[in-house]
Structures are given as structure tokens and as C-alpha cells.
């Protein structure tokens, strides 16, 4: 049953893709920008600053990830689990303080 449904939906999409009439012209292929002509190309270099922010994001993201299993078994781990996670967070807290004071979070 499910397979039939998926098959029909897929087939319809595919058929319209292959059989439907298509007209390509320049205006149609441009990215939509409120109906105005495109002013600049969207393909531009990003500033390297984004990159640093992305790095911080990854690092603190991974830190957050460690909290999930900890939260799940927090009750069972008791005081010991609390202390070990505090050590973990403290070390990364030092990192946060460092980054903050260093001005690496500012956009200059």
C-alpha cells in the first residue's frame, strides 16, 4: 500500500519533470530579488570572520552534545556526575572567558 502511494507520487513528479513544457529565458533563471534586476552576484567571497564564528559554534556545539546523555542519567549519576560535568564545563567556561576578553566575539 505504502509502496504504491510512494510510487504514484514519485511517478507524477517524474512525469511532470520530463513531459511538462519548459521555457528558459534569462529573467526567469535569475534569483528572485523582489522583482528587481539583480544588482550583485550572490557568489561572493565570505569574510574569514564567519569562519572563526563557525569554529566557535562547533566547539560549543560539541560541548552541548556531551550534556545530552548526562542529562538523561543525571539522577542516577548523583553528585559525582555533577562534579565531573562541572569540571568539563568549567574548562570550556575558561575558554569562553578567554575568547570574550580577547575580543574574538566582536566583529571589529
Amino acid at each position, binding site marked *: 500500500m505504502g509502496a504504491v502511494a510512494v510510487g504514484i507520487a514519485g511517478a507524477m513528479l517524474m512525469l511532470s519533470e520530463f513531459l511538462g513544457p519548459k521555457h528558459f529565458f534569462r529573467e526567469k533563471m535569475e534569483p528572485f530579488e523582489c522583482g528587481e534586476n539583480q544588482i550583485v552576484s550572490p557568489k561572493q567571497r565570505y569574510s574569514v570572520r564567519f569562519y572563526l564564528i563557525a569554529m566557535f559554534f*562547533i566547539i560549543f*556545539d560539541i560541548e552541548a552534545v*556531551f550534556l545530552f546523555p548526562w542529562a538523561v542519567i543525571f539522577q542516577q549519576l548523583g553528585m559525582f556526575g555533577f562534579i565531573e560535568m562541572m569540571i568539563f564545563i568549567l574548562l*570550556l567556561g575558561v575558554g569562553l572567558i578567554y575568547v570574550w576578553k580577547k575580543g574574538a566575539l566582536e566583529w571589529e
Partner: protein
Amino acid sequence: MELLIFYMFAIVSVAFAIFMIVARKPVSSAISLIGVMFCLAVFYVLLNAHLIAALQILVYAGAIMVLFLFVIMLLNLREKQGAISYHRTALQLAGVAVFCALLVPFMSMVTIPGTSGGAGVSADFGTTAGVGKLLYTDFLLPFEIASILLLAALVGAVALTKLKMK
């Protein structure tokens, strides 16, 4: 049902993977890689490894792909620079075929009767609580080293980009 979901996502993930390799635009490649990662997350869920599935989406599809995209944007590749040439398609296909041919005997060597099906694995293996129990007791030390690792990475990133040099 489980098998159906598996095959559906298996086909989708292989399709995404192939598209990732043949795509002409680096950004399209990256986006299809995200697709692959989502499919992988589904497989992890099917394997009862819920935490890994969450990690897959949070860390890989989220954080790491952000970095990928930034790098692509930073390099600002033209379409041609990023794309592979199709001159050696035959050679590439041959390579893939040889690799698959090599995998077959290897897989036959690996499969041992009786061990497939996860024998000897406890019920909570791979679940969030199960991983947590191991991570916060037996593997406490590597867990704490991870905080040093993250801190070192943080300092390294700042040192390589932000430090004022006289």
C-alpha cells in the same frame, strides 16, 4: 516496516552520495552531503543508537556542514574549478568496480556464523542512557580530556586568526 524504511533511505542516501560526487557546483555537493548525513542519522535510529543519530544531525549536518559551506564560500570556486572532469569516467567506473570486487571476499571473510545479529550486546547498548553510563563512569578520563581538547582547539583557532602580531 523497519526494512522498508531502511531500503527507502538507503536508496535516497546512495542517490545523494552519487549526486554529491558528480555535482558541478561545490555548494550543491555540500547540500547533498547534508542529505547523506540525514539518511545516516535515520540508519542510526534504526540501529537503536539514538544518541549517535542526534549527534549526526547536530554535529555533522549542523556544525560541520556549516564549516564546509563557509570554506566553499571562502574559496569562491568557479563551477569548473570545483567539478571533476568526465574524461576518465571509464577509468573511474573501473576503479569502483575493482573496489567492490575486493570488498566481496573481504565481507565473506568477516561474516562469522552466529555472531551476526548483535549477540552479546546488552539491551541498552547504544541508547542515550547506555552511552551516558559508560561515558561518565568508565570513560570518564577521555571525557575530561575532551574538554582540554576543545579548549586547545579554541585557543588554537583564536591564535591563528585573531592575535595581534607586533
